[in-house]
């Protein structure tokens, strides 16, 4: 009996210590990780909506928006220029069924409901799917569209490109349903 208590205690100490160390690591890196994400959003905000000033957008931008029960739409960021005129939105969406899983997209949509650009916030694709990110012709097929249901996928990277298209379409559908004026 004593032996089992001893073994349990050893495992408890090892796990407790590693939990403590991970807690410290998380505390130490979480601001930098959040900053990486915000930088990414701001960089694209400025790229897709050039009149929007480069400034930090807070992550809790979702509060005012309806129907985030659509679990694939994670966050919405408003693109407003200096005079506070709405230029469009950036939607952070989860793209389901990608090859590597866990794909998250930022999709820029203007006030007319057309895609002005998209990028990957989280991208776990390997092999040929990994090159979809740099495939300009695929990107050009999506930008300017108000629906991507008829856009062709990339040969050899069907999963990745289909997941991307699904993600963009989720953003467009959400815009049509909830944000369109």
């Amino acid at each position, binding site marked *: 009996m004593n032996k089992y208590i*001893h*073994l349990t205690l*050893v*495992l408890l100490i*090892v*796990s407790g210590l*590693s939990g403590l*160390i*991970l807690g410290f*690591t*998380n505390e130490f*890196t979480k601001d*930098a*990780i959040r900053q*990486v994400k915000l930088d*990414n959003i701001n960089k694209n905000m400025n790229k897709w909506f050039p009149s929007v000033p480069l400034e930090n957008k807070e992550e809790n931008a979702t509060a005012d928006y309806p129907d985030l029960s659509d679990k694939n739409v994670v966050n919405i960021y408003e693109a407003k220029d200096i005079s506070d005129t709405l230029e469009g939105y950036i939607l952070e969406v989860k793209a389901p069924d990608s090859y*590597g*899983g*866990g794909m998250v997209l930022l999709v820029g949509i203007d006030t007319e409901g057309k895609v002005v650009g998209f990028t*990957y916030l*989280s*991208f*776990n*694709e*390997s*092999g*040929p799917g*990994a*090159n979809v990110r740099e495939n300009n012709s695929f990107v050009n097929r999506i930008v300017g569209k108000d629906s991507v249901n008829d856009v062709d996928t990339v040969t*050899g990277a069907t999963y990745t490109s289909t997941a991307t298209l699904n993600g963009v379409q989720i953003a467009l559908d959400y815009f049509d349903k909830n944000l369109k004026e």
Partner: protein
Amino acid sequence: MTKKQNFLKGIFSENPVFVLILGMCPVLGVTSTLFGALGMGVAFTLVLVLSNIIVSMIKNFIPNEVRIPSFIVVIATLVTIVQLTMQAYLPDLYNQLGIFIPLIVVNCVILGRAEAFASKNNILDSTIDGLGMGIGYTIAIAMLAFIRELFGAGTLTLFMYGDVNIKFNLIPNNAFEPISILILAPGAFITLGLLLGVINAIKFNIENKKSVGRS
């Protein structure tokens, strides 16, 4: 075994990729670009050296019955630290390696060295063993990635961070089509097989010469 022999065995006689054929999943998965392979090699070496040091330090306190779960907890903790640090300070590399960073936890080379070497040797020897094995692993996957990216895409990617992108395009004006199967999954197997063949041929040649010299 001298310290030098201990270090060199991981690179040559017991190279985890070319001789022991261990930890093949990332070897085949991340070697489509040189940058990915080098990043993986550095992350792997870091985790391996640290896990060897910690396992060697705690070996006398861990009862035999629970050594494997304890080692796995140590390795998983180290991998998570590397993952969070990379996500915060090297986001491009983090994005490129993707799922293969958390998978370092189940890389059998790391648990293998913890179990077979670090749990039986002192801290200094375990560190040297980890360094040798890590460097051997990095050299092996960098060789594979060099061949695959060069012939499969016609490029060599050395570094990517934000706007700094050191990538050489070695086919000017798309003069010829690269062998794109090499950067696909089957290309990883083909290249690894050919490399293993070449390395074994060289090894047998050297051994033959030695035995001829002896007789």
